[in-house]
Every structure is written in C-alpha cells, then in structure tokens.
C-alpha cells in the first residue's frame, strides 16, 4: 500500500539510496552521451555488416567461392557485384533514381517516398524519445498506434462530417485514443509501481486483440457487408491531402510531424513542464526533493508520448491505408520507433533525422528486394546493428581505434568476442 517503498518489478528500479542516481539516469547518459561521430560510424558499421550478410547469402558468390584459391578475382568480383548492386538499389529506392529516363519528376520520387515512410517513424519515435527523457521505456508503440488508428479510422470511415472538420475530428480522436492508452501506462506506473516495460508489452497484445475483435464485429469497425476483418475505406473528406500532387505519396502528415518535432523541442527545452520532465529523467529523487510531483510527471509524459505515437497511428490510417485497415496496420513502426529514438539520442531533431534515415532504409529495401532479390528483412538487421553500435560507444571506438574521451570507461580489448576479458 505504501507506494514509495514498494519495489518496482523488472529492470531499472528507482529505489536505490539517494546518494546513487538510479538506473534510468545512467541509461539517459548512455543515450545522450555519445558524439555525432559515433552515430555516423555506427551506421557505416551496420551497413558493412549488412553487406557481409548479402555476400554470404549471394548465389554467385557461393559458386565462385568454390574455386576461390584458383581464381580469387571471380569470388571477389561477385562479392563486389552483390554488395554494390544491393546498395545502389538501396540508393535508387530511397534517394534518387538515376536509372530512369522519364525525367526529374520521376527520378526524385524515391526521396519523397522516403519522407513518406519517415513520417510515422518520426511521430512514434518522438513518443518513445520523450518517455526516454523521463526515464521511462515506452515499448507500447504498437498498442498506442492501434488504438489511435481505430479511433481515427472509426471517425474517418463511419462518421460523415464536412470536409476540413472531418479530418480534424478524426485526427483529434486518434491522438486522444493514443494518449489514453499511453496515459494508462503512466497511471499504473505512478499508482502501483508496475514496471512500464511489462505493462506496455501486455497492453500491445490487449490492443491487438481488442482491435482484431472490433475489426470483425459488424457495427464496430468492420466494413458493412464484408467478411474480412477489415475496416471500410476512409471517406475522402478525412483523407490526408497530398502535398505535391497525386503522383507522390507525401502528404500533410509530414507537416504535422515537423510541427510535432518543434513542439517536443519547445516542450523539453523551453517550457516549465519540460524542465520537470528532464529533472525527473536525470534523477527522480532529486526532483522529488525539489518539489516536483514525480508521479504526475509519469502520467503527463505518458499521455503526451501516447499522443505522439497516436499521431503515427493516425498517419497509417488517414494517410497510408486509406482503403480500409486491418490489425497489422502498425507494420512494426511501434518497435522501429524504439530504434529511431535511440539513434536520435532522444533529442527531437535527432529523432527527426533518424526517422528519415530509417525511412530511407525502408523505402530502399523494397527496391533492393525487387531489383536484387534481397529480402526486406535485412533492414531489421541493419537497424538493430546501428542501435547496438550506438549503445556501445566503446565498441565503436575500439573498432576504429578512436581515442577514449575522459570518461569512466577504459576499454583495451578491441573485439567483443574476447570473452576471456569479460570473465577474467
């Protein structure tokens, strides 16, 4: 019953003695601590790992490797072919399609495609990043997106309203839905000390089954006269208008995401509430002593984080799946958002550019699959390696022989594989 003494189950239990800053504080330092150089090098390293994977599974390479010692040039050439083919396809699919001869308007389309893919990633990434700054780990992106998308989708598909008003109402409904689903986590954390990692994971599944149920229930979300678990199409008055004409998928959602980024920047760096957020993130005990209501901060930050992730869910429904959505509408964005937030070091503009990078990987992966036959799953591998490398700056420094900054860490062993050092 005594909330302050109750230990939170799971990982970063903020119940250490006031002398030691809690785990969440250290996590924050890790996320914010590295330099931009580490981020760039981490991306390079991850792309190298992806390249190795492409080479290892390439058929031509496997054939030529059979007689590697007789004619090594063949195998090396094939390896080069595989990697350069893969990454030039990635470039063509995400930035500029130099191979086309149909003019600039077509050639530049991949870049706008990248921005379109980046839009929900940035929104959800902001939600995760904001929670990070308070020391909370929001894995609940999937659930928050699903609930937000259902709310926005219901209004968008089944509640006819005048043109501009309809879009606004659908957007607001979705954002509120996401905020409530996220706020629930903050409330449970504040009231009972339930660990947010567990609660968000569980709420993801609950949201998934809830939305699945609604999608197959006539009168709820299911399209009338249909048997598929799918909603009806979004009415034209609620669909996000495109920004640059119908031949590009980029829509007004991108503007919304820019506004959201500015808002989060303002919130964190210029507002009193943001000051409280950062204070709790740095050290909840000190914040408590300073008179900040830590529990209220937990609820507030999860409400806002849920709203931001909800914006991503709304984007999916009103921007991407306008013909009707199914329960898989989140398309892994809720989890990608975690890597986006980590890559962006939980800073608003960092998240913005990290989202664009991951959007580019996503957009390019489809070209890689169609042109080179490389499964899109490679993007997951590259993404997770980026985050692993970013999370362990000493590893990146060791690989590139960079000098160690005057920190607490002194790493001499260059490779993680030397576990003898770990076990001593």
């Amino acid at each position, binding site marked *: *019953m005594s909330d302050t003494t*109750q*230990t*939170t*189950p*799971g*990982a*970063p*239990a903020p119940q250490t003695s006031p002398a030691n800053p809690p*785990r969440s504080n250290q*996590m924050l330092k*890790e996320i914010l601590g590295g330099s931009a150089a580490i981020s760039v090098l981490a991306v390079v390293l991850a792309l190298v790992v992806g390249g190795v*994977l492409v080479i290892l*599974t390439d058929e031509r390479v496997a054939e030529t490797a059979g007689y590697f010692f007789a004619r090594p040039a063949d195998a090396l050439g094939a390896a080069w072919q595989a990697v350069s083919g893969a990454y030039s396809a990635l470039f063509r699919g995400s930035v500029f399609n130099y191979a086309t001869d149909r003019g600039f308007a077509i050639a530049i389309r991949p870049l706008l495609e990248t921005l379109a893919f980046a839009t929900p990633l940035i929104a959800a990434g902001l939600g995760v990043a904001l929670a990070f700054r308070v020391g909370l*780990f929001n*894995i609940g992106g999937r659930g928050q997106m699903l609930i937000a998308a259902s709310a926005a989708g219901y209004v968008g598909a089944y509640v006819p309203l005048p043109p501009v008003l309809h879009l606004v109402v659908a957007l607001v409904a979705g954002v509120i839905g996401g905020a409530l689903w996220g706020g629930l986590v903050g409330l*449970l954390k504040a009231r*009972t*000390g*339930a*660990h947010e*990692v*567990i*609660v968000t*994971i*569980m*709420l993801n*599944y*609950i949201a998934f*089954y*809830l939305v*699945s*149920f609604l999608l197959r229930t006539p009168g709820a979300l299911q399209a009338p006269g249909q048997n598929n678990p799918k909603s009806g199409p979004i009415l034209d008055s609620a669909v996000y208008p495109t920004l640059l004409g119908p031949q590009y998928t980029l829509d007004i959602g991108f503007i919304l995401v820019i506004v959201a980024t500015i808002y989060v920047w303002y919130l964190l760096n210029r507002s009193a509430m943001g000051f409280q957020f950062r204070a709790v993130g740095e050290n909840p005990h000190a914040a408590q002593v300073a008179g900040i209501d830590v529990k209220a901060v937990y609820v507030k930050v999860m409400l806002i984080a849920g709203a931001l992730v909800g914006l991503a869910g709304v984007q999916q429904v009103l921007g991407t799946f306008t013909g009707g959505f199914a329960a898989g509408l989140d398309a892994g964005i809720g*989890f990608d958002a*975690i*890597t986006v937030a*980590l890559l962006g070091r939980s800073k608003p503009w960092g998240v913005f550019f990290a989202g664009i990078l991951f959007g580019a990987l996503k957009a390019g992966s489809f070209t890689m699959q169609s042109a080179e036959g*490389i*499964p899109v*799953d490679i*993007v*997951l*591998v590259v*993404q*997770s*390696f980026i*985050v*692993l490398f970013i*999370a*362990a700056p*000493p*590893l990146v420094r060791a690989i590139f022989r960079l000098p160690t900054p005057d920190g607490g*860490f002194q*790493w001499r062993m260059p490779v*993680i594989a030397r*576990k003898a*050092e*770990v*076990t*001593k």
Partner: protein
Amino acid sequence: MSTAPATAAAPAGAPPAPATIAVRSWKAPIAFAVFTVISIVLFFLVGRPDLAGGNPTTTYRLTEARDAIQLPPLALGLAETTIVVTILMAAATVGAVLLARAAIRVPVWLTTIFAALFLVGFLTWAAAGATVPMIGLLAGALTVSTPLIFGSLGGVISERVGVVNIAIEGQLLGGAFMAAMVGTLTGSPYAGLLGAMVAGALVSFVLAAFAIKYVVDQVIVGVVLNVLVLGLTSFLYSTVMVPNADTFNSPEKFQRIALPLLSEIPIIGPILFRQTVIVYLMYVAIVLVWFGLFKTRWGLRLRAVGEHPTAADTVGIDVRATRFWNVLLAGAIVGGGGAFFTLAAVGSFGKDMTNGAGFIALAAVIFGRWDPIRATLAALLFGFATNLQSTLSIVGSPVPSEFMLMLPYVVTIVAVAGFVGLSRAPAASGKPYLKA
C-alpha cells in the same frame, strides 16, 4: 560457507512478518468480489440464450478411447453447477473480507479453490450443451506451455543473477531456427535440440557481452536483440531455407513417447506421460533449476550476485563471471525451448514463428515472482488460457476468442499492478556491477 545456512535459516525461524507490519490488504477480497460479480453477470444475467429450452448439460470426457482404464464421462447441468459455484464463490469472498478485516493474509489455498470454482463454472457455462475433452484440453495446455516454461526458467535464472532478459523472444526464435537447420542437416532431432541450445546461448552471449562488458542498458540490448534475431532469421529463412527447403528446413520431428505404466494412470497419465522428449526434458529442467537455485552452492552464489553484488564480491565471488556464465546457461535453456516450435509443434521453421511467446514467458517470470516453480505455474496458466480458447472455439463458445486470448495479458497487468501480492524483483536485477 558456514555462515550461509545460518543466514538462510534466520528468516525461516523469525516470527512471521505480518505481526509487525499488520497491513490490511483489500486486494484479494476486491479481486474475489469482482470475479463473483462477473460470474453472476455471465451465468445468470447473460446466460446462454442461444441454447433453446431446458437445462443444457456440459459433458466432461475424462478418458480417451485408447486408455486401458475407462472412466465414465462427467455430465454437469448448467443451472445447478452455476448456482452452486456462484454460492461457493460468494462464500469465499465473504471469508476473504473477514480475513482482511482481521489483517490476515488470504491463504493461497483459498485463492486456488476460488480460481478452480470460477473455472468450473465458466467452462460449464461456456461449453454448455457440448462435450469437453478434458484430456485433450489439459494435455494440449501442457504442450502449448512448453516453450513458455523453458523461457520463464531461463528468465528466472537470468534475472536472479542480475541481468534482465527481455531477449527471451529472440532466444526462442533463434533456437527454433537453429533446431530446424541443424535438425535437417544432421537428420537427428537431438542434434537439432543441441543446436537450438547453442543458438540461445549465442543470443545470450551478445546480451551478456553488451550488458556486462559494455554496460549498455540491459533492457535496450534485449529489445534490440529481439529485432536482430527476428531480422536475421527472417533474412536467412528467405535466402537460404525457402529455396532449399529439403536440405535446410525439413527436420525430423520428435515423436510422442508414452512412458510405460505411468501413461496408464487415469487422467494424469495421458496428460503428463504421453508427450515428446522435449516435455520430459522440461520436467527435469524445472526440478533441476529449482533444486539448483535453492539447494546448492551454485544457486546461493547466483542469488547473492543478483541481490547484493557488492556483498558477493566482498566474500570472493566473481560477480561479472557469475553473471556471464549464468546468462549463457539461461540462454541455452530458453533456446532448447525454442526447439519445441520446429521439432515438436510445426516441423519446419517459419518467419516470426514464436509470435510473442517470449514476452509471455517474461510475464510468467514476473507473475511467478522470480521463482522457478511459480513461474512454471504461471506459464501453465497462460498455456491453459490459450488452449482453452482453441478448445472453446471448436465447441462453439459465446465468448469472442479475442477476449480469451487477451486474458493472460490482462491477468499479468493485474499481477504486476500488485493485486496478486507484492512482487519483488531481485534487488540488483538490471543494474550493471562496476567494481569501484
């Protein structure tokens, strides 16, 4: 070592804590009351309007055709069963209220009986007018629980030694992949099982290296590892397994083995002793992990490192080495559970085939309060809920299947929020140990 038994014995011999704390916990009575109200609503207000006329009965089939000893099926009338069950549940609720007023903790047996009552009432209501194959229901639940139990055992070990293991999902998936690969290449499911354990340990190795050596936040590493394993296995599945399914992805499955004599025990036999080798290994693993954790020097050291690494270091235990090797062991156990998917259940690997089982196992760890036996029971509960859902969808139940599937997650949130009693993580779980 002479101090260890003394300190271990101290809390057992000490007077029970409630004498000094005397907290009146209303959580159990509230939970009881909520479930009683749910029962009244479901059984009497909602009822079964879809079943026309009379008093439908629910038949529980207790034996299968091939059993040596045949038991007659049990038929329960809907009306009388639900009335009796609801009255008993109400009585239990009143009892719990009285206990809470007297500041006495509601005993576990009362909670167990209450849960059983609710279950009988619910099953009778949901399957009214149909036959429930009890053996199939329970044996299936055990089978479904197998990877969850392996996962939660690994999770318990890992968290007890002080490393949060969010990567259970990745370890299961890696194990499933490697089991299919090695099992097909060698033609032996046992080799596949071994490969699965190696794969789980490999995932654990990355977790341990980053968490212990590079002091990266353990939750972050775990989450990223799940994505990494999902990406790697999906990538290799598409590039390697799909084009050459015969050479890489058609392992020989473990066959069900009926243990002689034991499998002939009525009811229990067919449920527990007509399973695959993986399930029998699971029995052994549960006992070994429990015994090891609480009865051996290894377990004592492991728990010391997870509870108070500084103290453990002071008495000469190498904290980082203990953590490293035990996280590896935990990964191997979880990986072995992953083999269940490819070598016992499906017979080939598929993209993301674990489908969140690792997260349920994680929930079981917390629900089971970091205790191998309780975690096993929690995993069994989750498995039972899943299998109950599929059984009820076959008999035709009025409850939408999505709500049945949602149940384990709701229960976990309720448990984590503290309604099932105070759950306390190992004190140093999630905190890296940096020697000053």
